[in-house]
């Protein structure tokens, strides 16, 4: 009897140990977030000891690696904005049309084949898209647009748009799929065509789900790194001209990481300040996207 009790208490200790180990695994995600915030905050704080926050937010030149240093994040933000904007101009219309086709028009078989093939696009490493943008799309565009530079915002923007297309179409399609079919049937019974059902019933009903996919796609575009590093050039520029070389926040971080800027210098601290800016942007976008998605869920409970 004693040995039985021993075994039970041993077992209880073992169970507690397992519980603690699993809790530790789960809380690692919290430590990751804390780690990100600390790593960014510490160096950004050091950065702002030397550079005023007003200069950072209002100066239109970004030249930390030159002798005449300017620290205006706006030119990197402009570069990030123009590329993301072009990407969204490609991804939103194509993505939503694609979602409508797959959800409202196509046969189940077509959908079963096409959806996974489209999702392959999202699984291709981004460095591959960079290669394609620089060596295929840019030369192709040059034959239409004579003034296009070898490095520009247009080509990586378009390629990035296609890359995030499956994300927009999959998420939007899921949202449309969740619209109760009674709504569709009601509209059909009133004599509506598929086009009318899609645009006047399904899309409005799934709107917050669709918007959530757009916002998440913007967040992906803003954080995308390799396509723009390879194909957009490395010239920070406060301009929205898509035909000339620019630099995004992410490409700047890569540029400095590749160089031999010693740690502890102001040049090196800039990548953390730039990273902090990027982190705040994407965090805000992700929170908005989640909020929209939750709202959509509540509508159809």
């Amino acid at each position, binding site marked *: 009897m004693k040995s039985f009790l021993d075994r039970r208490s041993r077992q209880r200790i073992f169970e507690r140990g397992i519980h603690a180990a699993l809790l530790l695994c789960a809380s*690692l995600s919290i430590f990751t977030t804390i780690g990100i915030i600390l790593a*960014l905050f510490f160096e950004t704080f050091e950065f702002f000891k030397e550079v005023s926050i007003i200069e950072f937010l209002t100066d239109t030149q970004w030249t930390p690696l030159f002798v005449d240093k300017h620290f205006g994040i706006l030119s990197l933000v402009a570069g990030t904005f123009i590329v993301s904007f072009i990407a969204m101009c490609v991804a939103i219309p194509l993505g939503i049309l694609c979602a409508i086709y797959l959800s409202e028009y196509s046969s189940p078989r077509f959908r079963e084949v096409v959806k996974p093939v489209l999702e392959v696009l999202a*699984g291709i490493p981004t460095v*591959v898209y960079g290669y394609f943008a620089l060596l295929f799309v840019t030369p192709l565009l040059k034959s239409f647009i004579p003034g296009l530079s070898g490095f520009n915002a247009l080509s990586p923007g378009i390629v990035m748009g296609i890359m995030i297309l499956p994300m927009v*179409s999959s998420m939007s399609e899921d949202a449309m799929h969740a619209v109760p079919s009674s709504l569709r049937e009601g509209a059909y019974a009133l004599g509506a065509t598929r086009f009318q059902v899609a645009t006047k019933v399904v899309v409005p009903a799934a709107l917050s789900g669709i918007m959530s996919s757009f916002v998440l796609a913007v967040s992906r575009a803003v954080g995308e790194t*390799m396509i723009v590093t390879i194909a957009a050039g490395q010239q920070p520029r406060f301009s929205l001209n898509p035909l000339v070389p620019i630099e995004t926040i992410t490409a700047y*971080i890569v540029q400095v990481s590749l160089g031999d800027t010693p740690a502890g210098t102001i040049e090196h601290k800039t990548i953390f300040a730039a990273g902090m800016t*990027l982190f705040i942007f994407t965090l805000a976008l*992700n929170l908005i996207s989640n909020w929209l998605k939750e709202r959509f869920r509540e509508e159809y409970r």
Partner: protein
Amino acid sequence: MNRLAYNKLVDRFFKLAALAATIVGLVFLFTLVWDIAHDGAGRISWSFLTSFPSRRPERAGILSALVGTIWIMGLTAVFAFPIGVGAGVYLEEYTKKKNWITRLIEINIANLAGVPSIIYGLLGLGIFVRALSLERSLLTGALTLTLLILPIIIISTREALKAVPFSIREASYALGATRWQTTYRQVLPVALPGILTGTILALSRAIGETAPLITIGALTYIAFLPESVFDPFTVLPIQIFNWVSRPQKGFAVNAAAAIIVLLFLTLILNSIAIYLRHRFQRRIRW
């Protein structure tokens, strides 16, 4: 033309436009694959796979990048799998009532999944390279990628555990099994194919990651093989990036050939995931 005919015409036109939009993505994908195969297939040879990088494109190879990629993937799998599964099990099997800790962890994981990969690079630089003095080693690279793919593994583990019928757990508890015995001997084996599939898909994301590894300072030119986890390294995507950014045509061809190898490895990982799912699915039936 009456109203009805007009509506039908609009509908037909819209259907064509929507179909065209769907096909754009497919055409793009095939063009991409064709372009890369066209540029690089002729360059692939045994010597390309077994040579170190070189200043002369025709003598350069991907040996150090390929070995580095295999090291990094192996280490990342060893770190990420147990931690990710552990976290998923905790959230799914060990927390029946939602308290503030589990809710915080859940929101946190959802947000981490949306953090750009380059930010993980800055995290690795700040924590692993500097604070823990691991330098630009394989270990730093693998730990950084581990943190990057953990949210994906945790989310897919939870999905797989959710799919296990509750009756299996109840039967196990009824026989006097403890929570861990139930989880380890009954629930996890059933959920394993789903968990493995998710893990392998997460690894196939990690294999293509370039930005975070450049940020932690992985080198672009390495003419030796790493011997321990504390050695510097390079990986295929970084080698590709390095070659793409050079002006000579020969290096662009090398980049295309290396891309073929990288896509091939990604394809293998995905095939393993599909195979595992099929194989295990057949064995367990209720």
